């Protein structure tokens, strides 16, 4: 899928959709859900819009909007890995988990009036085979064939069982075969998009994209809001100003003190919450001495005050994490034994004694020497555009300095930073990691050699270059099974490896704030009714189809 939604996890509630709309409607507004009204959304500042609605375009400029127009087979949500059947109504595995049969929803129409059928699904997937450039999830590295069986059934065969395939497959946006068959999807800008989604393009300008309600949407009566505005924004600052003065109603931007800059302007209507998604990790190059020594990584971990990182660098949104890659929102996958083992501690004294025990001694200038007698110096790399990482890196540097480790910080461009990290030409650096519906999606890519590469070659996820055959075995076990018990056991063992071997060091659970105003609009997910993740990113149609104007 071109737009992975791996970080969009919130509490699932299969039947909460209906209840949510009714509940909040009856409570907060004199008028219930009805067609009319409008909303202004700025998911994040991208600058002026381009006239591109191609859902397979690799840039991220139009991501937020394309997802309102084109729809995937399944909407993913929920920290426990729940999902909501969308264009696909149901699915089943057969032939020892190598054949996936999808049953499509009936009566779904594209906005040009054509029926959405299995032919469109087959076409979209075949197009990804023909144009690998749009197959950003590498679906065809799993798939061997895709066939239609009647207008509403699609059969997909994969080369070996893979439990994560469904997740990656079903995020793919479905496009109409009739309009795309003569197009090169890599270069087609798709200025007049035709999808099955709740909204369709009304007008485009670089400063404002306006969507109007799709009156023939398959969810009868929905969406409620007649018009959706996507004004372009160039900076978080301008979005905050727009939120504060009420010209923007929904956003998912980062800002240090939203309580002061947004909520306090009208606490009765201005709200914030957070979306959780994965970890911020301290990556350590395992090919470098002495970072390849476990006691060193353990000491580094113990020397880091995660609370300070959270409060100072992330304004407290992101929270201190465990060491095993299990997100706070995914704690149901953990066990009490693991909870204990994976807890991160802040104990610089302990860190110093671990290093002393491992043969590190203080040199004449009071800084540590490695057992080989060389100064222990670590280079930290970070990207200037990621100011939270810059701040964290600077803090980590002084925390390490406090236990006697010399540090240098390199602040460079985003591309140079990510190239250095991916190619393995770094010592240490803060970066995000993969995530998904359960901790397997985090742990496997981070530790499996399948996601690694030789030094100098870009590695997709395992950039610390951890190698442990046990991880591969566990991954195969996971893929071969659909049983939750097996999955749970695999995750437990992988998390154990992560927590005890520390191939990389968990820092924070990555949470990003969302901002929304209930002044004119009702139907939002709330703390008491968290029916869906409240992020405005990437076509937030599950929430958007619930929202309605208060009058």
């Amino acid at each position, binding site marked *: *899928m071109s737009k992975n939604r791996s970080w969009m996890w919130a509490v699932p509630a299969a039947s909460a959709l209906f209840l949510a709309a009714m509940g909040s409607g009856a409570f907060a507004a004199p008028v219930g859900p009805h067609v009319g009204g409008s909303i202004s959304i700025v998911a994040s500042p991208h600058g002026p819009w381009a006239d*591109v609605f191609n859902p397979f375009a690799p840039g*991220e400029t139009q991501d937020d909007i394309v997802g309102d127009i084109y729809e995937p087979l399944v909407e993913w949500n929920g920290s426990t890995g729940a999902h909501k059947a969308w264009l696909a109504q149901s699915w089943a595995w057969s032939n020892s988990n190598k054949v996936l049969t999808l049953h499509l929803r009936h009566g779904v129409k594209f906005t040009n009036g054509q029926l959405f059928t299995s032919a469109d699904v087959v076409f979209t997937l075949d197009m990804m085979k023909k144009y690998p450039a749009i197959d950003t999830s590498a679906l065809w590295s799993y798939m061997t064939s895709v066939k239609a069986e009647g207008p509403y059934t699609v059969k997909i065969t994969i080369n070996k069982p893979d439990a994560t395939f469904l997740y990656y497959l079903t995020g793919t946006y479905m496009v109409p075969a009739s309009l795309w068959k003569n197009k090169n999807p890599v270069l087609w800008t798709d200025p007049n998009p035709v999808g099955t989604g709740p909204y369709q393009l009304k007008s485009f300008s670089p400063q404002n994209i306006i969507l109007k309600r799709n009156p023939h949407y398959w969810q009868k009566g929905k969406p409620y809001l007649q018009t959706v505005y996507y*004004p372009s924004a160039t900076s978080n600052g*301008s979005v905050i100003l727009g939120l504060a*003065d009420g010209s923007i109603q929904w956003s998912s931007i980062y800002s240090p003190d939203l309580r002061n800059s947004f909520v306090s302007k009208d606490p009765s209507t201005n709200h914030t919450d957070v979306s959780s998604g994965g970890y911020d990790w301290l990556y350590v190059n395992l090919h470098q001495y002495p970072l390849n020594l476990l006691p060193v990584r353990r000491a580094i971990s113990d020397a880091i005050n995660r609370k300070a990182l959270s409060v100072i660098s992330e304004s407290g949104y992101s929270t201190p994490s465990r060491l095993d890659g299990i997100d706070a929102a995914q704690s149901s996958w953990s066990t009490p034994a693991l909870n204990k083992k994976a807890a991160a501690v802040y104990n610089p004294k302990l860190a110093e004694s671990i290093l002393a025990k491992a043969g590190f001694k203080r040199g004449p200038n009071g800084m540590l020497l490695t057992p080989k007698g060389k100064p222990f110096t670590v280079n930290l790399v970070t990207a200037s555009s990621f100011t939270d990482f810059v701040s964290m890196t600077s803090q980590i540097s002084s925390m390490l300095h406090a236990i006697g480790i010399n540090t240098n910080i390199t602040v460079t461009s985003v591309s140079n930073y990510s190239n250095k990290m991916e190619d393995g030409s770094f010592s240490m650096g803060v970066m995000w990691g993969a995530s998904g519906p359960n901790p397997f999606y985090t742990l496997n890519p981070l530790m499996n050699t399948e996601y690694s590469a030789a030094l100098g070659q870009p590695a997709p996820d395992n950039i610390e270059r951890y190698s442990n055959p046990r991880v591969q075995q566990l991954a195969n076990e996971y893929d071969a099974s659909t049983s939750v018990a097996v999955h749970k056991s695999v995750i437990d063992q992988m998390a154990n490896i992560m927590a005890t071997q520390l191939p990389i060091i968990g820092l924070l659970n990555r949470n990003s704030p969302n901002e929304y105003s209930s002044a004119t609009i009702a139907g939002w997910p709330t703390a008491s009714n968290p029916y869906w993740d409240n992020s405005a990113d990437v076509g937030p149609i599950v929430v958007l189809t619930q929202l309605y104007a208060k009058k």
Partner: protein
Amino acid sequence: MFLVKRASFYLLTFWAAITLNFFLPHLMPGSAVGAVMARAHGEMGPGALHALELAFGVNVHQTLLQQYGIYLSHLAHGNLGISFTYFPEPVSQVIASTLPWTLFLIGLATIISFVVGNLLGIYAAWRRGRPLASVLPIAFTVMAAMPYFWVALIFLYVFGFLTGWFPITHSIGTEVTGIFHRFGSIMYHATLPALTIVITSMGGWMVGMRNNLVSVLSEDYVILAEMKGLPEREIVANYAARNALLPAITGFAMSLGFVVGGALLTEIVFSYPGIGYALYQAVTNQDYPLMQAIFLIIVTAVLIANFLVDLLYSRLDPRVSND
């Protein structure tokens, strides 16, 4: 002859700019694919790296010379490539949608600042010795030393956010129809950004005009006119200011380069959808084609403006033909 000379100089400069422009991106570490991946913060699937490389057509093995040749021939055909940031939108499209706003904003601000600055300069020279005439040049010189973006941010905050008098983003309102409404909306949105540029760039004109005029006013022919009993107003308007304006006109074109730079920062602060902001985005995304094209457009525009001024100048001052 003068114009031919100038034209060939501009062509040479243009060639220098496009060549520099071509080589610059090849000097830097990092790639566009890396930047796109990193911007997505791990939200892209496992195949994204390879897919993006295919889509962007990077990793093509050509020698630098071949690439330079291709670059020149594309340029000659007006093919500026496909933007990485706005992929797959052609770069020319991005420029077409942003350039008019910048031309408008810079044009407006420069004209205002030129006219008002020179008028104030005339006043300061003519009424030399009066308190206001002494204070004005100093005040505006000091203002010219303030950072554009800082002034812009203060304006944005005070006149946009705190008081709500002016819009805080964009160059035109949402769904504005009718030519008068559109014009009004555009002017309204341009007020603060233009004001920022005017205030920080006006001092140069004023001081320049004042200094030139002071010199001119002590020239023999002015003193002669004075002795003949011509009214002061007439002397200043008909003789002195006109002659003092000549050097200011060459400065006009030269200053464009600075104003473009200042406008870039101003556009970012006011979310003004011009070419300056696009350049900034291109730079942060390592969007080579877009960056190259924007730099080229800026240089071309400045060169054309210079040439136009040369044309004007050769009309106003016949002496330059002998230069």
